[in-house]
């Protein structure tokens, strides 16, 4: 079970369709300050159902839509696709691969799609928990957040372990 690809379009600093494919071994995303690395981290959190704009550094969810740059017009919508490959057949959808898409338009309209078919957030959460990814997404550690577990209360750490269990 692993992450096969992430595709960003109109999301933060990625106006044009950008796809990252992941294979075996250790993947390292590098680049200078402000180049867009953490925007990719945000894209994964967002596509997998993050509900709080603060978790992706915005003040409203619409902040994730590409706002334009020097000589580049803003985008009408943000769309991110995450493809998870299920080698062990843990996902009961019967597919060997699951594509999760999240889209948000400037006017606030948004949707989720599972393997191309429009669905509700709760169905995405279900597929994720089958694949071992809890809705707290503790396997994604955002920039500046690594020390969180040390600062958090004993009760919160227990919840983290419960979610993994």
């Amino acid at each position, binding site marked *: *079970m*692993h*992450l096969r690809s992430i595709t960003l379009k109109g999301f*933060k*600093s*990625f*106006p*044009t369709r*950008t796809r*990252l*494919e*992941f*294979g*075996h*071994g*250790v*993947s*390292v*995303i*590098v*680049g*200078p*300050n*402000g*180049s*867009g*690395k*953490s*925007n*990719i*981290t945000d894209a994964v959190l967002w596509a997998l159902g993050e509900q709080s704009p603060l978790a992706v550094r915005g003040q409203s969810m619409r902040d994730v839509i590409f706002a*334009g*740059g*020097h000589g*580049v017009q803003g985008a009408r919508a943000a769309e991110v696709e995450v493809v*998870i490959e299920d080698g062990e057949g843990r996902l009961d959808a019967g597919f060997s691969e699951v594509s999760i898409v999240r889209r948000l338009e400037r006017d606030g309209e948004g949707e989720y799609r599972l393997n191309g078919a429009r669905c509700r957030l709760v169905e995405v959460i279900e597929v994720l928990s089958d694949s*071992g*990814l809890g809705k707290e997404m*503790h*396997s994604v*550690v*955002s*920039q*500046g957040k*690594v*020390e*969180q*577990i*040390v600062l958090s*209360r*004993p*009760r*919160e*750490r*227990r919840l*983290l*372990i*419960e979610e*993994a*269990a």
Partner: protein
Amino acid sequence: IREAFEETFAAAAENFEDVVQHLFPGGRGRLRLVHPERGPRSLIGAAESPPGHGETAEEDGQPETGVEIEVTPPGKSAKRLSLLSGGEKSLVALAFMFAVFLARPCPFYILDEVEAALDDINIDRFLELVKRYSDRAQFIVVTHQKRTMDAADTLYGVSMGGDGVSRVVSRRLAGRAIAEAAA
């Protein structure tokens, strides 16, 4: 549900002791379950645990079990986590993450600049674990540091032009195993 938790916790606690040995050579650490509503009993053997925990749990009106983290870096006396240095706190957090991972791996981990507070020696200890465990889960590490780049099997270079647009170029590197064998 409760059984799954206790089983996972037991495995995580055992892993935590091992991982701490790797990240804090000569030091030791452990995870401990605390039951605040049982009052004095939970404070025995928890001389360092701040009295605030019991009260917090009672406010909620439920018997709230929690997980205490104790780490003693080499040569030091056991102390409050809060007094640990920036680098030490990062290592403790990473040890916890790896301990839970070994008990119940998620399919992938995205770690964004988690080594920012670590000096070179500790970055190497951290990367050693990432490489060692990369057969059990996918590790995607985001960084601006060269040392961390060297641990990659695949590199994704992100850059931004003067137009505010990000671009990505990826390169699969020569088998890391080969490179390391040659070194």
